[in-house]
């Protein structure tokens, strides 16, 4: 694992229609947040302008993750359409495995592999979405000691994803969309390297 593996990773999952929710969260994150942000939004296998749309809402660089690219703090990475995005040590890994929960990229796949690689230094976030992808992954993050935040179903444009996450991931914090960013920042601070107390 590279030395970049010391920093926390904020992993966000949502499905089509989450653009608005993602924008609100990105705008609310502190500019000096010492974490990488990785987003899985369910997308069709076709080129899209998601990166440039989200770039309007954050000072951080936004790009689609490439295979073997280091996971660096101060960046927003997007799962590319048609691939699963995983973490392998401190780098991204791509896969063309079968869809999970009808989705490729799948939130579960990202969350589960981040839990494996980053352990308690993962903060999983579930936003508005139309299916249960991500619920199992969020539970896995919690099992490894990581943090978990779910957008409140009543504030979500589509509540199926938050509902499923709350049902599967006991211990996840529930927050309205405007509060998610500050909850994430608090959870990141809790596991930031200088606060973790471990080498």
């Amino acid at each position, binding site marked *: 694992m590279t030395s970049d593996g010391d920093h926390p990773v904020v992993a966000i999952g949502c499905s089509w229609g989450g653009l608005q929710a993602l924008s609100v969260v990105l705008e609310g994150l502190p500019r000096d947040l010492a974490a990488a942000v990785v987003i899985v939004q369910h997308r069709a296998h076709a080129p899209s302008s998601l990166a440039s749309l989200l770039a309007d809402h954050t000072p951080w660089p936004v790009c689609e993750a490439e*295979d073997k690219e280091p996971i660096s703090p101060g960046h927003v990475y997007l799962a590319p359409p048609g691939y699963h995005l995983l973490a392998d*040590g401190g780098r991204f890994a791509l896969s063309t495995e079968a869809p999970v929960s009808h989705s490729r990229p799948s939130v579960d796949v990202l969350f589960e592999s981040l839990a494996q690689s980053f352990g308690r230094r993962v903060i999983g976030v579930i936003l508005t979405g139309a299916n249960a992808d991500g619920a199992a992954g969020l539970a896995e993050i919690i099992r490894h000691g990581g943090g978990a935040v779910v957008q409140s179903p009543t504030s979500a444009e589509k509540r199926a994803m938050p509902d499923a996450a709350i049902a599967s991931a006991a211990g996840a914090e529930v927050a309205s969309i405007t509060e998610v960013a500050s909850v994430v920042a608090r959870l990141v601070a809790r596991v930031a390297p200088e606060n973790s107390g471990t080498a």
Partner: protein
Amino acid sequence: MTAADTAGADRPDAERESIEIDLLLEGVYRRYGFDFRQYARASLRRRLYRRVALEGLQTVSGLQERLLHDPACMERLLLDLSINVTAMFRDPTFFRVFRTKVVPLLRTYPFIRIWSAGCSSGEETYSLAIVLSEEGLYDRSRIYATDINEAVLHQARQAVFPLEKMQEYTENYLASGGTRSFSEYYTTGYEGARFDRRLSDNIVFARHNLATDGSFNEFQVVICRNVMIYFDTPLQSRVHGLFYESLQRLGVLALGPKESLAFTPHVNDYQVLDLQEKLYRKVS
């Protein structure tokens, strides 16, 4: 110790799992000669657990036992690890740019050799054959399509694809700049869509293991897309060395849309031909 996790010290499950996977891979290598020890661990782990579940087993160690005692199980795992999602003219923009930027370069050669590395069931290979044919280059081309798995190669040689895929493939073909009627290229039979035998004439499907085998020819084009995503960084470097050796000067290397030369030792040996489509030209 592998690079699989550094938090293993306080997570005994993860460390034990890491040991189990290492042992399974070592066992497969020693028993069957398939070397998956340098495959990217995150995706390999998922595929192993999927096989564990499909076999009705509980642990990776249980899978290791069955693999060592039952060659049919090894065949199933091999298929798991060889199958790559693929479609004809998948990523149509790649084929579009191949026509506009690579084909003009190929026209300058009297004889064209192309290596399609990790060809799987041949969809990409036959797509390439169609492009070369439409561009009038097929007769002076030879495509070497290689893969690790003989069963998959056997399937590729049949040139038969599911009928229900033809709509998707037609759309891809058109989006890639194809101007013919795609159905010209196949006949429908009870077994599926059987592609024109003439597309197979200049294709050689052969077994080759990128992890262990050497260079076998010099090529103007090496295509290896969405294969090295399953290799770890050291293995990827080895394979890039192999490709570098196998490419003529000014030859073209084609990677998958989300792969990069940037994290390899050969990044400075190539010039970018098309950054978006990951086409590179060997310059040194």
